[in-house]
């Protein structure tokens, strides 16, 4: 089933501002049954050079996902630009299952329109055909969306190429650390600094609309939870209570944060904070540690970590009045930091697996646990919005890097920064 597939380094060109911790994506293991596809360069229906090589971006996205095996351009026998021009016999000879063709044309309003068609080589049928208008300077994003559509048509689940990833970058010696909260496109390009501080930054969490991030910063010498709007940079402090202010998680409707507080008595419990009214409601009340809340997608319950049974395990509590926490994990001595899959069926957690901290997926109803990663200190799992992949933090040569594993464990990727450490990844929701 598994084989070592191609090793690809995508050194990602970055237009505009450069930052120290540029991420590069490397596929460590792809699927043996990855889908062979030809992404034919789009025709540019105007004078001069095309404003963007849409096909190159689409091809890189599909290849990086580990689920597709794009045909190199040099091996293409012809370069059709419409479904009617595709000679399936030629492509069959090249052992390609799908051919993407299309063109790019200027619109009267100054924008550009991509017209594209996906042809199934098996039967010569056009299985996808659409147009996608875009600003000239947004053609890379349009290309990611085109790749999302192809991914969905062939694999049955929407691609997440047009999404973003937030993470924490750290560099400098122990005595003079520099922490930066970063946001990057899912391919590692277009990296921006959201907030930086010499004090720790932790626990970034996306608002469901993708417009802001909640996170913990120690820059006032005490931990506090902030919400920052990405477009404007406006930073609002939403919780700076005595003790810890930790682990924010947005409700699916974006109106509340589940957070972990210790308050004055030092007992760490999960609370719900209404962002508009600032009303605070205690959700758990146990002398043990209750932390790392994660909202179920239906908004009706919250998963969290508790050591009430003597060691950290995952629990779920319903939000209706009078609900009691129910323990979910029973395998192993350490299960923590749950994140719920978009369909609500699975949890990605940190588990202690034969002496190593690894990422596992837990059945949210039956509790069965499957280890997906193979590091020694893996942590901070987060689902892609399509549920197909899980991003997490791991170590490579003693340095913190990010990794992606498919939810079935078969595909593995690394995202390494050019300098310093990266950690605590959070995958954005769909942004359009």
């Amino acid at each position, binding site marked *: 089933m598994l084989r070592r597939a191609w090793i690809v380094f995508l050194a990602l060109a970055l237009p505009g501002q450069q930052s120290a911790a540029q991420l590069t994506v490397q596929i460590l293991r792809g699927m043996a049954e990855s889908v062979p596809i030809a992404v034919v360069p789009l025709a540019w229906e105007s004078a001069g050079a095309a404003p963007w090589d849409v096909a190159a971006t689409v091809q890189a996205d599909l290849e990086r996902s580990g689920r597709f095996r794009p045909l190199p351009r040099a091996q293409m026998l012809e370069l059709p630009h419409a479904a009617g021009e595709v000679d399936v016999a030629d492509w069959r000879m090249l052992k390609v299952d799908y051919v993407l063709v299309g063109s790019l044309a200027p619109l009267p309003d100054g924008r550009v329109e991509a017209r594209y068609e996906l042809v199934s080589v098996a039967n010569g049928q056009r299985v996808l055909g659409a147009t996608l208008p875009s600003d000239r300077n947004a053609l890379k994003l349009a290309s990611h969306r085109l790749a999302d559509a192809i991914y969905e048509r062939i694999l049955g689940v929407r691609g997440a190429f047009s999404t973003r990833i937030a993470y924490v970058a750290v560099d400098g010696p*122990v005595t003079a650390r520099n922490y930066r909260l970063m946001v990057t496109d899912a391919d590692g390009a277009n990296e921006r600094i959201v907030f930086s501080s010499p004090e*720790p930054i*932790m*626990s970034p969490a996306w608002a469901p609309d993708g417009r802001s991030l909640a996170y913990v910063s*120690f820059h006032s*010498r*005490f*931990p*506090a939870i902030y919400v920052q709007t990405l477009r404007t940079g406006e930073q*609002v*402090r*939403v*919780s*700076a*209570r*005595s*003790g*810890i202010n*930790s*682990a924010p998680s947005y409700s699916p409707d974006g109106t509340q944060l589940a957070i*972990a507080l*210790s*308050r*004055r*008595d*030092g*007992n*760490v419990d999960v609370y719900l*904070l209404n962002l508009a009214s*600032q*009303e*605070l*409601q*205690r959700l758990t009340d146990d*002398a043990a*540690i209750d*932390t*790392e809340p994660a909202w179920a997608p239906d908004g009706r319950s919250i998963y969290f*970590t508790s*050591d009430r049974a003597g*060691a*950290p395990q995952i629990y779920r509590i319903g939000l209706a009045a009078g609900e009691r926490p129910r323990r979910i994990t029973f395998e192993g001595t*350490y299960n*923590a*930091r749950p994140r719920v899959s978009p369909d609500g069926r699975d949890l990605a957690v*940190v588990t*202690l697996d034969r002496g190593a*901290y690894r990422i596992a997926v837990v059945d949210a109803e039956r509790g069965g646990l499957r280890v997906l990663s193979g590091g*020694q*200190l893996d*942590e*901070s799992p987060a689902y892609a919005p399509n549920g197909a992949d899980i991003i997490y933090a791991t*170590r490579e040569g*003693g340095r913190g890097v990010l990794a992606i594993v498919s939810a079935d464990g078969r595909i593995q990727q690394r995202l390494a920064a050019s300098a310093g450490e990266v*950690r*605590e990844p959070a995958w954005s929701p769909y942004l359009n």
Partner: protein
Amino acid sequence: MRLLPAFTIAVCTLLLSGCPKRPTTVPEAPAQAEQPADSSATDGMAEGQVGDARDLPGADSGAGGGAGPVGVATVIYFDFDRSEIRPEYAALINSHGRHLAAAGGIRIRLEGHTDERGSREYNIALGERRAQEVRRTLMLQGAGDRQLTTVSYGEERPAAEGSNENAYEKNRRVELVYGR
């Protein structure tokens, strides 16, 4: 129940004798010492305004402060995933507790830390529990609630770098920082 380890040390120190594994009775004194914290916590919902609740007087102090007892170490180490204070630190904590009790103007910041293993947010909670354990023990020795501030850094501020037990045991700690 969470007062037991601290209380155990206090009793051991007072009696200068062997420590019982599990004290069978809990006297009123520790609960009394907790009173300020408890009453502050019960005004719960009213506390919930943005940023208004930094009710530790030492939080923004650059002045005041003071020094610790001469020649007494200021770091306490912990076992993995535990927050009970080990018996060998009883004398150390008692020295600090008596020092604080004798000079009510001295303030101290208790910084809780963990090793790097496991989840970062869980480690923030664990570091807090360690700092709170030290705080309670100091209060049993007569330190005042308002002299003590806690903050947990979890695994974010290691004392020693490296992914080995040698580094881990140096990182599972509470630091007593005077004058903060």
